[in-house]
C-alpha cells in the first residue's frame, strides 16, 4: 500500500475522534494527534483498535505508546504491513 493511501486511511480513523475538525484538513506527518487534533487521550486506545481492524495488524502496547503524531502512526502501520 502506498504511504499516502495509508495516511488517508489513518486520517479517516483519527477524524472520528478529533474534536478539532478544522485541523484535519491541513494535517501532515508532523500533526500531533492529541495536541493539534484534540483527540481525547483516552480515545487513543480506540484509535489503535481501529488501526488493527482496518489494516488487519496487531499493535503491541509499547508500540502504541510511541504514537504521538500522524506520521508516527503511518510509519508504524507501514512497518507492520512490511
Amino acid at each position: 500500500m502506498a504511504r499516502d493511501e495509508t495516511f488517508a486511511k489513518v486520517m479517516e480513523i483519527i477524524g472520528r475522534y478529533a474534536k478539532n475538525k478544522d485541523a484535519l484538513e491541513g494535517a501532515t506527518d508532523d500533526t500531533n494527534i492529541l495536541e493539534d487534533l484534540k483527540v481525547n487521550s483516552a480515545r487513543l486506545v480506540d484509535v489503535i483498535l481501529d488501526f488493527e481492524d482496518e489494516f488487519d495488524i496487531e499493535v503491541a502496547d509499547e508500540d502504541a505508546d510511541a504514537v504521538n503524531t500522524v506520521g508516527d502512526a503511518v510509519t508504524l502501520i507501514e512497518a507492520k504491513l512490511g
Partner: protein
Amino acid sequence: MTRRVVITGMGIVAPNAIGLDAYEEALRGGRSGIRHVPLLDELKFGCRVAGVPQGVDEVAESYFDEDELLAMNSSHRFGCVAAVDAWTDAGFERPSHEDEHVFWEAGAVIGTGIGGIDTIGERIVPMVDSGRVRRLGSTMVEQVMGSGVSARVSGLLALGNQVTANSSACSTGTEAIIEGALRIRSGLADRMLCGGTEGASHYIWAGFDSMRVLCRNHNDEPEKASRPMSASAGGFIPGSGAAVLHLESLGSALERGARIYAEVLGGALNCGGHRSGGSMTAPNPVSVRRVIGQAIADAGIEPDEVDLINGHLTATGADPNEVAAWADALGATPESFPVINSTKSMIGHGLGAAGALESVACILMLRGGFAHPSLNCEDVHPRIEGYAESIPHKMKEMPELRTIIKSGFGFGDVNACVIYRRWTQ
C-alpha cells in the same frame, strides 16, 4: 437561606413523542407509545410489548459528534438529548468545546434506575468471557458507571456545580427533581438540570419479566396493555426514555427574564424501612401517607388546594392501595377527591426515568390547563370505583388547574412526592 425554585426549561424523549410540542399533543390526544417488540417474541418473554422512543438516533446524530456517539448507549442518547433540549429550552446556547467558560452556578442530578446494562450484556460480558478484554476500547466505563449520563452532560454543557446521578429505582426521576430543588433552595446552586434516563434493553426488562410483574396478556394489543387503575390490569409495561427539567432559583430566572413554566412548591423523600407490609418490592402504607403529608407541609399548602394527582400508578395490584393512600393523606372523600391520572397508561413505566417523564407531563398540563386522559381503565378496579368520577378517560380541559401533586415509589420501599404550581406573573 430559602429561595423559591422554578422550572424554566424542559427536554423530553418519551415513547410517544420527542420534544415538548409533540409530547403535549400526544398527551392531549391520549396517544400510546407502547409497541410490540419482536425481539421479545424470539427471547420468549412473557411481556412482548414496551415503550421505546422512536427516531432518537437521528436526533442524537444531529446533536453529537462521532466521538461522543461512540460512547453513548441508549440511556446516554435519551438522557443527553433531553438535557441539551432542556438547556436550550431555558434560553441558553450550547457552549463550544473551545470555549473555556464553566457555568459554576449550574449543575445536574440525572439519575437512572438500572444503568448501562445493555453495554454490559452486549459488550463487556461476551468480550471479557472470550478473553478479549483489550478489544473493549475506552468507552466501557463511562457507559456503565452510574453517573455516566450526568458526566457526559456536564461536558456537553460545561457545568461547574454539583454533577451527580441518583438512583432510587422507580422514584429516581422524582427524587432527582427534589434533590436539585433543595440545592437551589439552600443557595448552593442557581440552576440544576434534573431528571432521569433509562435505556431500552431486554436485559433491563428481563428481571421484571421473570418476577411476573409485567403484563403478559395484552401482547396482541400493545396500546391497551398499560392499564393503571383498571380491573383488568395485569402488570406494568416496561418503558424507556429520558426527561430533564431545568430548575432555577426564582431570582436568577427573573433577573435574566426567563420564561417560567411552573414553580416547584415543595417535596419530600422517605423510606418505609420494609415494615408494616413494606418490603423490597412493596411500599409501607404508612410511609406513603407520610411522604404525601410531608410534601404538602413543605409546600405550605392545604390538602384541598391539590387539583390533580399524577400518581405513580403502574398497573399492578398496588394501584388501589395507592389511591386509598391519596384519599387518606389528602383527607379526601370520593366527592372531594381531585382529578387523578397515570401517564404510564400511555408511555409505560420508564423506571428511573418515570418520575421525570411524568413531571414534564405535569408541567405541560399546568401550563396548558388540561388533564391528560388515563388510558385503558374504563373498567375501573372495584376498589377504586368510588373515585371513578375523578379519572379522565378523555382529555379534560381544566382552565383553573393550579396545583399538581406527583408521586414516585420505588423498589427498596422508597418514596418521593413533589408539588408543582402553575406560574402566574
